[in-house]
């Protein structure tokens, strides 16, 4: 079974500063990888996903993530954060075999706080 670790429960960043959220996964083969964002009281919004190909993927809202197979990581980055980026961020993995039918395994999330 796969698992996801987001080592940072909370991260505080100043507005305009760069951001990196860490994600490590455990899976025996190449997984499907996702980053979602959740604003307070809201559902999940997909930021980006990696299935195959170029290991640097671009997403919405200026986010990008890099898949590093050797490190089993899929870290999320943004060069300059905005106050509206304050939210909960979830990394998730799905098994490649079965075409993702078994569903997603989520990390516990990272709460992003933006300082003015």
């Amino acid at each position: 079974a796969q698992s996801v670790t987001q080592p940072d429960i909370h991260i505080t960043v100043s507005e305009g500063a760069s951001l990196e959220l860490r994600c490590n996964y455990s899976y025996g083969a190449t997984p499907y990888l996702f980053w979602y964002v959740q604003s307070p009281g809201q559902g999940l919004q997909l930021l980006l996903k990696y299935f195959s190909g170029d290991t640097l993927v671009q997403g919405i809202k200026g986010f990008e993530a890099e898949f590093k197979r050797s490190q089993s990581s899929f870290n999320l980055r943004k060069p300059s954060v905005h106050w509206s980026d304050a939210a909960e961020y979830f990394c998730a993995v799905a098994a490649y075999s079965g075409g993702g039918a078994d569903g997603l395994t989520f990390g516990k999330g990272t709460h992003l706080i933006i300082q003015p």
Partner: protein
Amino acid sequence: SQTIHQWPATLVQPVGSPLSLECTVEGTSNPNLYWYRQAAGRGLQLLFYSVGIGQISSEVPQNLSASRPQDRQFILSSKKLLLSDSGFYLCAWSDSRDRVFYGYTFGSGTRLTVV
């Protein structure tokens, strides 16, 4: 286009009462369907998934059950709610077309408070 509907948006139920949350998808056939729960201050946990009518897989033993009476309908139920059943419940389906997997689409969620 494919859409997913989930209702109600919020629900307050007394302990011991029954529960029924419904999720329907449109614009696709034979989708894989999922129920997730997010307890307060915690991550999302997969509760059930279904790859077809009447086929339910349970990931976590609990006070809940799921059913899929129709191809595009997925229902989460409980006979007697517990306080620990409070949380944010999300329905999702996996977007696969012509055997190509594109990802998952989530509903807007139901916030359940058991009192």
